Structure formats: structure tokens, C-alpha cells
């Protein structure tokens, strides 16, 4: 049995635990043995993106220690995954642990499709759904069709594309609070596009995007809900 180590991310751990639970469930259903290493905290992205490389480095090293020896690390976030697989090398150039780690870290949908070779997890979710392409997932991890393929196999789910799926939701980590008006303007453009699809649910593989989008939807009094891909795939 494949042993999979979860890196749930600090946002999922503390704010959206259901996403982590759903991901664990889907992986177990797919035949994996799932472990959660308790010493995990954060991928260091907040510090790195804010220019605090020393602080980011020490947290990255904590990550490396936590996940030493893990065969597969699965992450329910495109941005956290790309922080680890693309940017740890900038913080710790030439570090062998980073080099060994990179091929073993996967974003959740990539893990299902490329490692488990599974595109149908037997889920059902009866709804009109639209998908938001989160930026790091799209541009750094080149994730575009994978989640759509997985959603396409969910029974009862109808997928409709919004006209600006690839446009940034405006979260950008601390950008959302350092430049709130611009961030707010960006997310309102996004939710206008979502509303135009008529979908009841917007899905992404990044909880931070979903937090931004949900916050704007609820402020606008919308009934549209946000769900992480893992939550949809865990639905029966």
C-alpha cells in the first residue's frame, strides 16, 4: 500500500479543516495509507513573499526536517506546493534535502492523476459548478486540465467555464491586506464573472483563493458557495 504524507497547509489546518479531512478520505478510498506528521506547520510562503528570506529559510528547514523520509507528500494547495517545489531551492540553493524532496511533493489533483493514475474517485455532487484557476497552480505547476478532468467524472456535476477563469482572484497573500482596495476590486471582478455563469458552486484547488472569493461573495450577499476540489471529490 502506498504511504502518503499529508501536508495540509496552515490555512487548511486552522481555517478549512474540512478540506484536509476530505483529502484524507479521498486518498484512503483510493487505497493509500495516509499519515499526518504533527510537527508540520507552514510552507514559509508568507515570509518569503514578504521579503523575509531568513525567516522563511528557517521555517523551510523545519519543513524539511518534518518530512524527512516521506515517500509522497500531498498538498491541497497549488501555491504551497509550488513554494516547496519551486522556491525552496532559492532559499537553500544546492541543498541536497531540497533536491531529494522536489520530485516527491505533489499537489492533490496532480497526485491523483499522475501518481495514482486515477481520474474517477466515485464521487457524486449534483450541481452546476465553475472552476477558478489559481495562479500558482496554473502558471508554476502548469495545472489546467487535471482538476477539470476530475470534476468531469463526478456524477451529477455539470461544469461551466467562467469567462475569466485564469484571472487572479486578488488574494496574493499579504497583498490582500496591504492593498485591500485593489485586492477588493480584483475579487469583485472575479465574482461578477462567477455570477454570470449561473453556477451554485465555485471550485478551486487553493483554499486561500477560496477564502478570498467566499469573503467577497458573502459580503455581496450571494448564495454561491465555494468548495475545494477535495471536498467535491469526497462527496457521495
Amino acid at each position, binding site marked *: 500500500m502506498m504511504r502518503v504524507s499529508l501536508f*495540509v497547509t*496552515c490555512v487548511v*489546518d*486552522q*481555517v*478549512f*479543516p*474540512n478540506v*484536509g*479531512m476530505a483529502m*484524507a478520505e479521498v486518498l484512503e478510498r483510493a487505497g493509500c495509507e495516509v499519515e*499526518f506528521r*504533527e510537527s*508540520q*506547520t*507552514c510552507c*514559509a510562503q*508568507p*515570509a*518569503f*513573499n*514578504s*521579503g*523575509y*528570506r531568513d*525567516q*522563511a529559510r*528557517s*521555517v523551510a528547514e*523545519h519543513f524539511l526536517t518534518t518530512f524527512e523520509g516521506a515517500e509522497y507528500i500531498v498538498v491541497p494547495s497549488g501555491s504551497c506546493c509550488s513554494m516547496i517545489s519551486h522556491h525552496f531551492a532559492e532559499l537553500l540553493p544546492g541543498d541536497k534535502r531540497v533536491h531529494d524532496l522536489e520530485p516527491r511533493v505533489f499537489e492533490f489533483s496532480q497526485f491523483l492523476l499522475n501518481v495514482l493514475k486515477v481520474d474517477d474517485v466515485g464521487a457524486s455532487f449534483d450541481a452546476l459548478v465553475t472552476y477558478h484557476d489559481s*495562479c*500558482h497552480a496554473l*502558471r*508554476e505547476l502548469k495545472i489546467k486540465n487535471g482538476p477539470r478532468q476530475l470534476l468531469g467524472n463526478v456524477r451529477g456535476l455539470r461544469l461551466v467555464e467562467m469567462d475569466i477563469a485564469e*484571472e*487572479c482572484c*486578488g*488574494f*496574493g*497573500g*499579504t497583498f*490582500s*491586506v*496591504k*492593498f*485591500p*482596495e*485593489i*485586492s*477588493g*476590486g*480584483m*475579487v469583485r*471582478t472575479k465574482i461578477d464573472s462567477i455570477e454570470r455563469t449561473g453556477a451554485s458552486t465555485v471550485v478551486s484547488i487553493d483554499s486561500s483563493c477560496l477564502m*478570498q472569493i*467566499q*469573503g*467577497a461573495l*458573502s*459580503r455581496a450577499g450571494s448564495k454561491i458557495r465555494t468548495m475545494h476540489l477535495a471536498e467535491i471529490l469526497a462527496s457521495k
Partner: protein
Amino acid sequence: MKTPNVTEALGDSKLQLAIYSATARMAERRRDVVSPDAMPDYQALRQHAHDIKKHTLDHLDFYLEQMEKNVEARGGKVIWARDGAEACAFIQKLARDRGVKVIVKSKSMTTEEIHLNDHLEGDGVEAVETDLGEYILQLGGEKPFHIIAPALHKTKEDVSDVFEKHLHSKRETSPEGLTKIARIALREKFLEAGMGISGANFLVADSGAVVLVENEGNARLTSSAPKIHVAVSGIEKLIPRAQDLAVFLKLLGRSATGQPLSVYTSFLAGPKREGEPDGPEEFYLVLLDNGRTKLLADESKRQSLYCIRCGACLNHCPVYRKIGGYNYPWVYSGPIGKILTPQFMGIEHDPWLPFASSLCGACGEVCPVKIEIPRILLELRSDKVAKGGDNVELWSFKVWSWVMRHPKIYAQLASAALSAAPTKKDSFFAVGPLKNWLSQRDLPVPPAKSFRDWWKERTH
């Protein structure tokens, strides 16, 4: 952190619509012509263009000297200007010496950079912008809003107002009619001017040539009608060979507006030759440093100088598309402006600038010369932090880092913080980042228990 006042731009729905739809159109046209079906070698061409620029800038001293040699061999003169003051002083003196009273200018961000028009006007010389968008703005006393579409924020009614006021024309609300008014007014200037000043899209070292790319014809007129042609160019515009234009011209028009070729591409190698019926009698190339050698010295950010000024990054930047060109501190706006400004001016000048980005990466994806704008933004952020100044933030991250290396403490603190967080906008505790978040959107409802608590319960 001090930030620009974007409230006005964000609240102006007319402006928002103008920026959004104009940039959307340019982006769509680009997409059509660089898709894998339309241009299968697009990615390979981008890499090749990047490689040529890298080589050129890594050997810039060699190519500068080659350029100078070839300009002079063709009968032109090269002026080396360390800064804007030197460049302007040369041009002002030349105008004085030749008795030039009217100058026509074609679009050049470099001349904006050095405030050339202000200097010339100070001498009582009339320096007329001839690119239609720039002309409209000049008449109205405004600055360009976008590299490629300088007046995209103006309606036709705005334009008629400007023409009525400054040209005493009749009210006209069709773009065709307005364009005709400008054509007639500017035609006079082209034929009267004693000097034409242009920028340069490319400098071709093996030919001593300047390349001008445009759609209107004003750059051709600027460089062909008056007796003197002065081209002002940053030193980074060099490419090694005329044949390299084949690659750059494939990318420039497509990236900017979705055109395989712009209407006019002029390859200008010096003043007119013996036997040619027309053309300038004198040609000067002003090579401008103005801080470029500073950027050149930073090897990891040197590629910021590869920019061919296509405007694609502006058209795809969700931040630019919200706040427009006037909310950037310098003449270069958009993502490229975000990386050039701190490098030219010093990060202390506008320390917030590299942070005004969600790092979405759309800019890097569309840059025809593959400048890694997001990576450079992150480096600039790190440079800013290294300079110091925000002790509160520094200590916050030191504490954060410590907490994140002590999982048990992190777990307790995080849960406590979440349950205490105000969800309401008007809460007393909604200060700082929380206040900023709540000003635009709601906070999520904190969960009953964290993932790690749930996992612990599940496995026991």
C-alpha cells in the same frame, strides 16, 4: 506602508470600463495570434529573443562600440549621454545652433524619462508630439496612461473638448473626424519642423541603424521630413544584427496588439545618401545611460533591461487593469514599471511598489523576451526588507518564524487567535490587517476544531 491613492481610480466606473475593455481587447488579439495553432514556434521564438538580449547585454560594451562605428560610417553622429541632463543639453544646443523653432516628436518613453519636452519648451522651442494619443494628451497637459495606448482613458467627447479648446476646431464626436482634425494640424508641423526627434525600438549594431515600429506614419514623417533627425535611445535597445530583427519583429506586434507586423517598420541607417531625393541631412543618435549601467551590474536582475516595450504585461496585469497608468510613480507603469522603478530610483523611493502585486505571474507568462518579472519582484521585496525600516513587520515575522518552528505553540496560538478574530467589520478589534481585510470582504467562520485536532481524535 505608504501606498498610492487608488480610491479615485477604483471608484471611477467610466475609467474602469475603459481600462478593462481596452486591455482585454489587446490581450485577446494577442492570444489569437500566438496560440499554438497560429504560431507553433512562439515559445521557441521567445526563448531565442531572450537569448539574443542576454548575449547582447552581457557584451554591451562591444555592441555599443560596434554601433557607434557603424553609425559614423553611415554619416551619422553618436552622442553619449550619461544622464537626462546631458541628453537634453545636447538637443537644446543643436536646436539653438541650427535655429530650430519647431520640433516634431514621435512616441518615445525615453524622452518622457528625461523630460525633454519641458527642457525644449523652456528654450521657447515648440516640441509637438505627433502620435495621436500623445498629441491629445500634450494639448491637454497630461501624461501617457499606457505604453501602447497612451490615451485609452479618454472618451471621444474628452478629445473633442481638448481640440476645441486648443485647436479652435468645431465640435466633432466621431473618431474619424477627430483624427482628421489632428492629421491636418500635425501635417503643418511635420513640414515646418526643423528637427524630428524619435525614440528607437531597436538599435542594430552591425548596421548602425535605428528601427522604428508604428502604425500611424508619424515616426516615418518625424524621421524623414525635417532636415535633422535625432534618435534618443537607452543603451539597452541594442541587438547584434539586422537579421535578428526577424525574431523580434515576429514578437513585438503580436505581443502588443495582435498584429503580425505593425503598419510601418523603418530601418534607418544614417542621413540620406548621395542621390536619394529626400531624407534627413543630419542624423544623431543619443545613447542614454541614465542609470541603465546600474541595472546592468545586478546580474540576477539584468534581464529587466531586455524589455522591448510591447505593453503585453500591462494588458494582462490584474493590478494595472484596476488602477491604470497614473498610479505608478514613474513613466514606466505596469509590471515592467514595478521592476524598473526601484532599480533606477532605489528601493527607498517607492518601497511599496514591488509589493503592489498578487504575484499572479500573468506578466511573466506573456513577456516576449521572457523576463522573469515575478522572480524579480520577490527579489526586490527581499532587497527592501534588507534595507530595513519596518521594525514592527520584522519582529512580527521573527515571532512568526519562531512559532512556526514550534508546532505545539503554533497549534495553540492559532486556534486562540482564530476564535478571537472579529468577523464583523465594525468590531473594536478590527485593526490593521484585519481591518483591511474586513473593509473589502467577510472573514470565514472559524471552525470548531482544527485539522490536527480532528486527526488526533480520529487516530485515538
